[in-house]
Structures are given as structure tokens and as C-alpha cells.
């Protein structure tokens, strides 16, 4: 028999009606992956892109060489950030259902990726997020009130009504404008980092994309430019297993890990348990030191799970088992950090409950204030004339003419 080529279609392990199946996920035991010197050549530390860096073990203890030895107080802050992100997401999801906001995207199950990464960086490091990184705004101290005003496109909206909900930005917090088009920020982060190197800045750039978006050519551009110019940048692929309905195998995950693409470009690649706050913090610190000391870029694959729908326009029950997340072997990032702190004697179920209540109250109160600045359907409203501003630095005559026409149209003239 002569073998013939047949189109290979990546297998999706479980669809609706099937039992969750994560047997494809290669896991390393907590504490077992060696932590190399930050100056190691990318090709010498390939194992980091194949293994899975984990710090928290099954008993929620921190073990092994990647243990970041953070103060309990810092871990409590981390838990608070993650929980606030979750409580905020939860409330906004429900509010979207009630029609007050047009669209929302939760980061449920992925809170550690944003919170731990941002906490391991300096505030002056520049962040180029995707649309599921709300935790970085929480870490950097942007009031959720401001995020809510963006969701409402109201009179305090940082985007002046121009962007879809969740497409935030924060210049003073060093967080770049979220695009809505996929992966575009990845090579931009590299360019920012190249400029930092040109200018002799001490700051680094960090960007996140989903594993699905890593299929875009911009992923290749980012890795190539980062490698060629040894840019001080950390490039994160958030492998949450699902790109809307499409399993990660369709983005190339069936062949090899996403982190393994790093060494192929001469870029250090690390695969990390994205639901382990301590592990994400530790690898980010490692990569940040590497970048800051001129040893070049790192590609980090965060293995996590998108526990919620892709967006409020999506229904995952149509394409994956309803209880899929319950079967995910890396658990829930908030629960794991909580249990770790409880094990340290630095937290309790009671404190967790009261913190949750406090944050819920904070979110409700912030929402009340946010809607007082207007909603899509209730006054006060932004001046529609704002749509003509910022197209250019100075509004050219044809746009000024159109703005006048629009005003006449609204006034019924």
C-alpha cells in the first residue's frame, strides 16, 4: 500500500454532549521545572517551552525554583485585584443582558494572566493589551467607574463614544488603546520596545494575544522583529483553548506548544500555568529582568481556559460541553490563590466572603455613579459633534462642513 496525502483536520477533543477531555494537555508537576539564569540563550532553554512552569501544587503550597517568595500582603492585594476583576465582569455581563450596554467580554478564569503579569512589572512599563486583559487596569489603579463610563459611551468615556465596550486605553497608566482587530498590538509592542532601546530607556513593553490570534501574520512580525533587534519585550500568548468556536488545535496547538514557536525565532519561550498566580508572576519577573538587562525578548504561553462565552454575542453551549470548565485540570485562579493564602494562615473563607461583599458593593456603587454620567439611551449624552474630532489633529474643511450638516440634520433643518 502506498500512503496518500489526506487533508488532516485537527481534532476537537469534546463537543456538546461529550464528556470534557483535556488528555491532550501536557502538564508538568508543580515545582519540577528548572529555573535557568535569565541570560541563558533561547536555544539552551527549549525545555521551558515544552514543560509547564507551576508553583502551586495540588495542596496549594508554593514549591520549587520558580517560587517567587512574595509577601502575604502582596498576595492579598493580588487576590483583591483578581476578585474585583471577576465581580466587575460578572455585574457588567448581567447589565449587558438588561440592555444598558451594547456588548461585553468577561475574563472569567483568566484573571491571573493579567493581574500577575501586571503586578510583576514596573508601572512605567508599557502594556499593549488585547480585549480580555481588564485585570491590568485594576492593577494599575484605574477606577472601575472609568471603565464603566467607557462601556456606557457616556460623557466621561475616555474614548469619547468612539469605541465598542471594553476597548479601553489609559495613557497615564501606560496602557495602549485596544484595537478590536486581532493581534495588531503584538508587533506594535515590539516597536515600542525597540524605541525604548534606541532611547536608552529602562522600560519594557508587554503584550497579550489569544492563541487563536497567534495565527495572524502579525504574530510572526512580532517574533521576528523582537528576535532581530533583541527588543526588550514580553510577548504573551494566552492559550485559553477556544477562539470563539474553534479549538486551539486549529491555531497550531495540535503540533506543538505555542511557547515552542519562540525558540524557532531565537526567542526564549516559556509555557506557564496561567491559572497559577505565583507561576505567572515568577516567569514574568524572569522575562522582565531578561528584557531589562539587554538579554532580549521572551514569548510566554499562558495555559488557561476561557470559562465564559467569547462575548455577550456568543453561546459556547453550541460548540463545547456545558461542564467543560469543571474538567479543566488547572482549576480556577482565584480559588487557587485563595486556598494558598488560607494554607499560609493569611486568609479565611470568612474574609473572602466579606471581601467579595465589599467589592460587590463597590461595583454597584460605581455603576450608580457611572449611569449618572449618561447611558447610550439616557442623558446626559456626549455631543455627537465629537465624532468629527480626532480624525485629524486639525479638522479639515470637508469634515467641518459635514459636522454642520449633521447638526442641521439633528435639528430637523
Amino acid at each position, binding site marked *: 500500500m502506498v500512503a496518500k496525502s489526506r487533508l488532516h483536520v485537527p481534532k476537537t477533543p469534546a463537543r456538546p454532549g461529550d464528556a470534557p477531555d483535556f488528555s491532550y494537555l501536557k502538564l508538568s508537576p508543580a515545582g519540577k521545572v528548572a529555573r535557568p539564569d535569565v541570560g541563558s540563550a533561547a536555544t539552551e532553554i527549549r525545555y521551558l517551552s515544552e514543560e509547564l512552569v507551576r508553583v502551586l501544587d495540588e495542596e496549594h503550597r508554593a514549591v520549587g525554583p520558580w517560587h517567587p517568595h512574595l509577601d502575604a500582603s502582596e498576595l492579598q492585594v493580588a487576590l483583591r485585584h483578581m476578585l474585583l476583576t471577576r465581580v466587575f465582569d460578572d455585574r457588567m455581563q448581567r447589565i449587558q443582558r438588561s440592555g444598558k450596554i451594547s456588548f461585553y467580554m468577561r475574563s472569567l478564569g483568566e484573571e491571573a494572566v493579567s493581574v500577575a503579569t501586571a503586578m510583576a512589572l514596573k508601572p512605567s512599563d508599557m502594556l499593549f493589551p488585547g480585549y480580555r486583559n481588564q485585570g491590568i487596569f485594576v492593577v494599575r489603579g484605574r477606577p472601575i467607574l472609568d471603565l464603566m463610563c467607557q462601556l456606557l459611551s457616556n460623557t466621561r468615556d475616555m474614548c469619547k463614544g468612539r469605541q465598542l465596550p471594553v476597548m479601553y486605553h489609559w495613557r497615564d497608566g501606560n496602557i495602549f488603546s485596544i484595537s478590536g482587530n486581532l493581534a495588531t498590538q503584538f508587533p506594535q509592542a515590539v516597536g515600542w520596545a525597540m524605541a525604548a532601546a534606541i532611547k536608552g530607556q529602562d522600560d519594557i513593553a508587554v503584550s497579550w494575544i489569544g492563541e487563536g490570534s497567534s495565527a495572524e501574520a502579525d504574530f510572526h512580525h512580532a517574533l521576528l522583529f523582537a528576535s532581530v533587534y533583541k527588543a526588550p519585550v514580553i510577548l504573551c500568548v494566552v492559550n485559553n483553548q477556544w477562539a*470563539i468556536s474553534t479549538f486551539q488545535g486549529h491555531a*497550531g496547538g495540535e503540533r506543538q506548544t505555542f511557547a515552542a514557536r519562540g525558540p524557532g525565532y531565537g526567542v526564549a519561550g516559556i509555557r506557564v500555568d496561567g491559572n497559577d498566580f505565583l507561576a505567572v508572576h515568577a516567569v514574568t519577573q524572569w522575562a522582565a529582568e531578561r528584557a531589562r538587562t539587554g538579554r532580549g525578548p521572551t514569548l510566554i504561553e499562558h495555559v488557561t481556559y476561557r470559562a465564559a462565552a467569547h462575548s455577550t454575542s456568543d453561546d459556547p453551549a*453550541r460548540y463545547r460541553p456545558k461542564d467543560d470548565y469543571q474538567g479543566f485540570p488547572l482549576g480556577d485562579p482565584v480559588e487557587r490563590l485563595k486556598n494558598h493564602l488560607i494554607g499560609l494562615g493569611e486568609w479565611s473563607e470568612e474574609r473572602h466572603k466579606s471581601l467579595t461583599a465589599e467589592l460587590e458593593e463597590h461595583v454597584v456603587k460605581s455603576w450608580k455613579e457611572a449611569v449618572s454620567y449618561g447611558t447610550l439611551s439616557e442623558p446626559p449624552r456626549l455631543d455627537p459633534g465629537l465624532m468629527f474630532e480626532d480624525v485629524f489633529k486639525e479638522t479639515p474643511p470637508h469634515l467641518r462642513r459635514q459636522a454642520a450638516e449633521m447638526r442641521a*440634520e439633528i435639528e430637523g433643518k
Partner: protein
Amino acid sequence: MAQMNMIQALNSAMDIKLGQDPSVVVLGEDVGYFGGVFRVTDGLQRKYGESRVMDTPIAEGGIIAAAIGMAVNGLRPVAEIQFADYIYPGFDQIVSELARIRYRSAGDFTAPVTVRTPCGGGIRGGQTHSQSPEALFAHVAGLKVVMPSNPYDAKGLLIAAIEDDDPVIYFEPKRIYNGPFDGNPHKPAVPWSTHPKGAVPDGHFTVPIGKAEITRAGSDLTVVTYGTMVHVADAAARNLGLDAEIVDVRTMVPLDTDTICNSVARTGRCVVVHEATRFAGLGAELSATIQENCFWNLKAPILRVAGWDTPYPHAFEWEYFPGEARVAKALKAVMEAS
């Protein structure tokens, strides 16, 4: 005949072609198991298998390029780009490759690819889910460009596109996927079953590429438009009590200059309407063509109604959208000019 919305009509077109022609394949993001984020490919993978209805990586450049390669090897790919706003990573493959393969190889190689993509606003999609980039493609020599305004045309044009030996960029105005839209977002949604063009033959038929259609005959003036705006313009004219002739362009390239210009020559007055930004939009081409052909018949300058020359703003969607008021103002101005 069956009652179909545009989604069902497009689905039916692909179903028929996949069934008739083993060289037809469908590819795109989420089009397979899930059936597409707008459900346009629903059920096709189940029926025709994973090698003919393919979920692809999120890589529009890759989707278009792979479709070209498949077409060069004898397949007839129908590529879906999930939103027209996402088509730009594939722009180089479309402009530099797809459009010119026949030309540069003196006809020795061809790529009969259909690129389907939902376009247009009115769905609270903001600047990344609302664009109407048809003029960018109409400007490129070698691409056919179409946009239907109803389920009947959607099915007939898609079958024609798949059967066409040249590449076709097929825009689907997503605001009217489920029903015609007169431009007033505060009115209850109307289903396609209320509209004569919601009646669609079950089987194979084509609407020829390159033919405009007069969707309403009239003598006061001619409105040249396409997509969602066919319905908005029709409502605006009716509410003004004007006996307007509405010409649905349907195919932007190659343009049916005869149908358009014969109408304007008869009425002597013309308004061009589209949702896309005005500057260097298709309206400029239409207006120039009409002027060149009908100058001596014109009783008034041709006016254009379009989206403003800004990105599509989330909060000001209906101030941006060229709704009934903007269309009516132009209709009146053209009628009042002596």
C-alpha cells in the same frame, strides 16, 4: 419557492453549489462546526464534511492565500471573512494576487475565489464591526464586486459568484440579514417574509453579475443605491410622496452603466446613496459616470448621500448612519433645483 431571510438564502446558495460541484469548498473562521458567527454556513459541515467546509486559523491573509492556491489547483473556494472590518490582513493577497493572476499569467492561471464578508453598520458594532469598504475593492482592476439588498438576489448572486471564473468580492449588508430596514432603528424589526424578495426559489438559479435592477419604477428622479440603503432610500422617497425610480446597483464591478444611465436620462434628476464614507466612495464613480453619460439630460446636479468621513462611532451610530432625514434632504434639493 420558500420564504428565506438573507442568511438562509446565502446558506441555500452554498448548499446547492457544494451539492452540485465537488470542487466547491467553504473555508473561514468558525464556519465549520459552529456554522459561522452569523449562522450563514449552518449545517454545511455536517452535510459535506470537514474537508469541504473548513474551520481555519484566525488569519485572513492565510485564508485568502490558501483559497487562491486551492483555486489554482482546480477548486472553487468560498472564503468567509468574518467581518469586512477584518479583511485587511488579506488585502495584499486580494489586491496584488487574486485580482491579477489571470492578467499576469496571460490567462494560464486563474483563481475563481468568492470572498464573502458581512459589512455595514447599524448593529452597534463600533469602528471595527461596521465598515463598508467596497470602494477599496472596486478600485482594484480584476475584482468583481457585488452587494445584494435582499434574499432573492443574495442567493442568485452568490451562486453566480461561485460559478464565475473570476474572483468576486461579495459584501453582505448584515443589518438586513434578518429583514429589510428603512433606517429607523426605533421601529420594530420587520422580517423578510413581509417583503416580496423574501420569496426565494429552493433550487438553483442565478442573478447575473453585472446587472443592476430597478426595484421601483418612477418618473420624478432616480436614486442609485445598493445594499441596506435601497430600503432606506425607498422609504425616504415614499414618505416624501415622490415618484422616485430606485436603481439597486447590485454589482459595482462590472457596473451596469446602461440601466443606471437610461433611468437618469429619463428622469433627469439623480441622487446617489451609500452607507460607506463619502470621500472617494463608490458614489464618486457613480456620479461621474452618470454625469459623463447624462449631462444633457440632467435638470439638477447629482447629489451624493453617504456616511460621514469619519470612522464609524459606537455612541453616534444613528447620527453617522445616512438615514431617512439625510436622504430626504438630498431628494428635496434635487427636486427643487430648476
